[in-house]
């Protein structure tokens, strides 16, 4: 029986790690060991270049995710690993969406772009590339609305996260 993980909620995990080879490998192993899939993953150098920030989203049962996070936390090169459960944090991602267009439906597409405060960054006869930023739900909603015109390609960065005010991420 193949476990259907997609029915479980999505979890957002933020990690501060030492910027060294192999760190990402060890983290992904903790997920892979249980047959858990990483939905999105963003790695970038932190303000202090000796460290990296990693934001992971993954679907799964909450108690299993708790265990995964603890097992990530005990890896030697991980400074901290934490799940962000409340919605009070700043969460953003960026998507590039390439949509089929022709002169007839272009105005409606541009209306949608305007509504979502997105922008067109490539404009040719039969397609547009739209850049949109925002939270995951917004990007999902916009992608859904553009589907009827015909999506050619979709690339998303995955979610990044930061705490508000003086709270440290």
């Amino acid at each position: 029986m193949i476990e259907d993980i997609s029915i479980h909620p999505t979890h957002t995990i933020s990690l501060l790690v030492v910027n060294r080879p192999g760190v990402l490998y060890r983290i992904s192993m903790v997920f892979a060991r249980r047959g858990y899939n990483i939905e999105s993953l963003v790695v970038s150098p932190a303000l202090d270049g000796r460290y990296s920030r990693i934001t992971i989203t993954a679907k799964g049962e909450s108690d299993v995710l708790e265990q995964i996070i603890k097992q990530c936390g005990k890896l030697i090169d991980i400074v901290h690993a934490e799940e962000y459960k409340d919605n009070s944090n700043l969460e953003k991602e960026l998507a590039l969406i390439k949509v089929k267009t022709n002169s007839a439906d272009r105005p409606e597409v541009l209306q949608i772009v305007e509504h979502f405060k997105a922008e067109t960054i490539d404009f040719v006869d039969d397609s547009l590339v739209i850049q949109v930023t925002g939270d995951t739900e917004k990007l999902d909603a916009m992608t859904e609305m553009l589907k009827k015109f015909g999506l050619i390609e979709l690339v998303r960065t995955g979610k990044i996260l930061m705490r508000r005010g003086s709270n440290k991420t």
Partner: protein
Amino acid sequence: MEQKTTSINGAQALIRCLEKKGVEYIFGYSGGAAIPIFDALVDSKIKLILVRHEQGAAHMADGYARATGKPGVVLVTSGPGATNTITGLFTALMDSAPIIVLTGQVPTYGLGKDLFQEADVFGMTAPAVKHSYLVKNSNHIPQVVEEAWHICSTGRPGPVLIDLPKDITSGACTVSLENINMDLPGYKIPGKASESDINAMAVLLNQAQKPLILAGHGVILSGAEDELQELSDKLDCPVVTTILGKGAFSENHERSVGFLGMHGTAYANKAVGDCDLIFSIGSRWDDRITPAKIERFCPNAKKLHVDIDPAEINKVLVPDAYAIGDAKLVLQQLIEKIKPAKHPEWVQHIVGLKKKFPLSYKLHGGLKAQQVIDEMYNLSQGKAVVSVDVGQHQMWAAQFYKIHKQKGWLCSGGAGTMGFGVPAAIGAQFGRPNDLVVAIVGDGGFQMTFFELSTIMIHKLPVKILLIDNKYLGMVRQWQQLFFDNRKSGVDLEGNPDFVKLAEAYGMQAFRIRRPADVKKVLQKALDFDGPCLIHAEVVKEDNVFPMIPAGATVNDMILKEPKMAMDKPVGST
């Protein structure tokens, strides 16, 4: 002032750093990519123990580490040399044993290019280590050794691997070997527990009427045996141990209830069922000691948990109170908060259970492994360091060889690695030259690493090997008999050699036991023999280990003797 640069290479720096850590032995097997390191060993006071297989080297280092508390060191070459250590790394990881494995590697320019004997050792071993390094600069070697030593031996100990490309060990190392800094900002070592966690546990311990301590390997790793004794005394509290916790609390003590679990003593398992509080210290509620439906584990008892590894809290069960920290320090904190108590009825109940459900075996109907092990215990006065392999003999040894000496029990518990017993005994004997070391092994596991008899003979190690030979993989055969209508498959070890002749081929003294009446006499001869020897005990082919709690079941389902009816297949893992 101009800094004078030292003219040593990476391999020499590596060995000097290990010398400074007090390493006495390196268990190794040479090969092309590791030649510079073996070369550096020629001028070192560290003694190289040349093994016969890399798995043997890893288990020797593990046995050395468990018997002494000091890290064991392994040195092998790249490719297959390194991959052969993976079983040993995994064994050490599962049981939190501190070992350092040094692997030669192809030169850095060849990494990822499929050179001869190149393997992605970092990648292949990552899930089997506490931490690992691929060194890409000769000047990093001193810091890497410093960190590896620290990581493997502190917190929850475990194996650390250092992959050393040949150009890095050959290249000049010009940094100082003094005052080496570590850079481990992510590594946390829990020490004392928080005051509030201690108080929460103390309240429950002070309220308990039928408290039971469950002592695991963590007590031994932390050196908290004396604190455990003190806590048990002050609280008048019986102690069960896990199989790896044997020796954490003297098994001769009135309040010792032996080891619990699938083949643990009936009284230990019944005590677990009867207690109103179970306090795990350095045990991880492993599936050999808890049922698959965890809510059926001591449903009426409060559960307390002390562990140095935060990831063990809430992993199997949610305790009523817990503390994250080093067992020794946490127990010291806790003892201060405990009110002296007396639980005479409860202790009498435990004593009664021990009398009512003793471990037993029959002396008629052929030679029994239990008798051989029991007699070994009596004749060696329980003073041996006992190393076991995996299977029926392991359970009988755990049942009948009581441990009352610290670090006297070496057992692959978590991994269940066959082939562990003999090399682990070798490592232990190197570490404790003045102690009697006995390897109790089965005919299956013995044949996985018996080639290390050479290592024993070369170094004249006075290890006694007690080979329990039932010509079967007995534990699997037992399962097949009980749960698979006795359909034997893959368990008959026909073709076993004459083990006495085999030992003699290595120049080793060997003894044979075939009759119950000979047990005492032959074992005494073997123990009196000055030097290594093998005792081949040909026991009855089909005997089963009892008590038994089928995998996944609860103490209520424990069977004490051969069942009359066919049994359902167990719900738990293997």
